[in-house]
């Protein structure tokens, strides 16, 4: 059975409909990439799963339970953590406090703790007493990922973790993902930058204008098919 599943997921911002019946599946110990252009609905999909946007109960199912209508704090407590787009560190909190607050709603013992997060990203130990916002973009992204890991989530949602970072920094960040997967989390990676996500993913979904236009394993998809699904066949 799927660990996390959306079924006919729709989402609206006022009169504007952003998602038109999206079906995706994440299995245990799997990495799924969701790619698509700006405005395709990727972030809306993540926000719907995480509970920031509320939906009908059955539109999102996690571990057999319908969570579509649950608020974000309850969904997080059940083990779905999100690294939000734009990192969203708390400026009033130090680096270490940003990490510690990741356990506020879920104090599950597991692989991840302050110590293991510092092992994953050693630079954060040096900067632990800095305000979170005093760090470089890549370091801030490490804090945002570490913060989400602190609760030992079963599902980690990563929304555009390479956004605005230099290629060398992106490589550093992506090096952490196999470790995170090995520690027992299933991942959903949302990316505009296809390369990194495809290399890491077991399966890929391509979104365009609020609909899934393509899905499959990275090897099974031709460049042309991805191009068409990403930009539309006419592009």
């Amino acid at each position, binding site marked *: 059975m799927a660990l996390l599943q959306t079924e006919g997921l729709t989402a609206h911002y006022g009169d504007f409909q952003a998602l038109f019946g999206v079906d995706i599946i994440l299995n245990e110990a799997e990495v799924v990439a969701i790619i698509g252009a700006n405005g395709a609905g990727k972030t809306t999909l993540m926000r719907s799963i995480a509970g920031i946007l509320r939906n009908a109960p059955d539109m999102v199912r996690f571990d057999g339970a319908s969570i579509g209508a649950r608020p974000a704090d309850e969904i997080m407590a059940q083990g779905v953590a999100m690294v939000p787009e734009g990192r969203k560190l708390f400026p009033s*909190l130090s680096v270490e406090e940003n990490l510690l607050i990741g356990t506020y709603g879920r104090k599950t013992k597991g692989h991840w703790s302050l110590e293991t997060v510092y092992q994953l990203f050693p630079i954060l130990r040096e900067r632990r007493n800095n305000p979170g916002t005093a760090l470089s973009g890549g370091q801030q992204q490490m804090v945002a990922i570490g913060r989400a890991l602190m609760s030992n989530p079963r599902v980690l949602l990563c929304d555009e973790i390479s956004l605005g970072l230099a290629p060398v920094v992106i490589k550093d960040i992506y090096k952490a993902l196999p470790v995170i997967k090995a520690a027992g989390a299933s991942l959903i990676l949302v990316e505009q930058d296809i390369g990194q996500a495809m290399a890491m993913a077991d399966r890929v979904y391509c979104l365009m204008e609020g609909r899934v236009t393509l899905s499959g394993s990275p090897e099974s998809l031709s460049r042309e098919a991805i191009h068409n699904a990403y930009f539309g066949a006419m592009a």
Partner: protein
Amino acid sequence: MIWVDTIIQGILLGGLYGLFAAGLSLVFGIMRLVNLAHGDLIVMGAYLILVLVTLLGLSPFIAVLLAMPLMFALGWGLQKFVLNRTLGDDILPPLLVTFGLSIVLQNALLEGFSADSRRLPTDALTTASVQVGPIALGVMPLLTFASAIVVIIALNQLFYRTSLGRAFRATSDDPVTASLMGINPTHIFSVATGIAMIIVTIAALYLGLRSNFDPSIGPARLIYAFEAVIIGGLGSLWGTLVGGIIIGVAQTVGAAINPEWQILAGHIAFLVVLLIRPRGLFPRSHD
């Protein structure tokens, strides 16, 4: 020497204004809610202490301990069932609702306790003083000031040393991202208002011990509290105490020059600070 005395009395008076303002500062800092009923809630707290003193024959200092959990529960409920519904992108609903609450409280107190001015029963302590060199310091003003310091130290410990304090700061920064940490922002807001009401109760104790009160004096306490918060800079608790001290000193100095100038001098000091430092003395670096 008289001037030194005046200024020290002003600083001690500032402790009272700091107590008035600390709850307001806490609530505004966490949820950007300006509670226009804050002054009336202080007055209500004073009546609550008075009722407990009268009914149970307690000392006001014991009665305040009983009043604190009651006021916490009231603040928690007020936030959960009323004020949380007013929070959002529009800043007008909370202003309107708390303004309405202010009027309701004043009139309810007027119905219940009449317009007579009341006072908490005092004992020898309230008129005692200690002699420091040539200056006599009242025990009650010293106690007020010490309480203000203790309240602000306690709040700072809560904010910077506990998990709840981290949640307060995170929710203040960004309630949506805070919810991704498993924090329920509306619950955090309710707890914060409950804590603010505990501080209101302490402020009410000293209000009632030091001077007369009647149902109509709430709005003036709100103004002093407001000015203290703004002078100190939004979000800084020590700044709020400094703001209270500045108003207190301005008032006693003004009164020493001419008794008619007491209230006016406090307001003028507030305007002068606003002219020089529009964001207050200790503003937060980000907002």
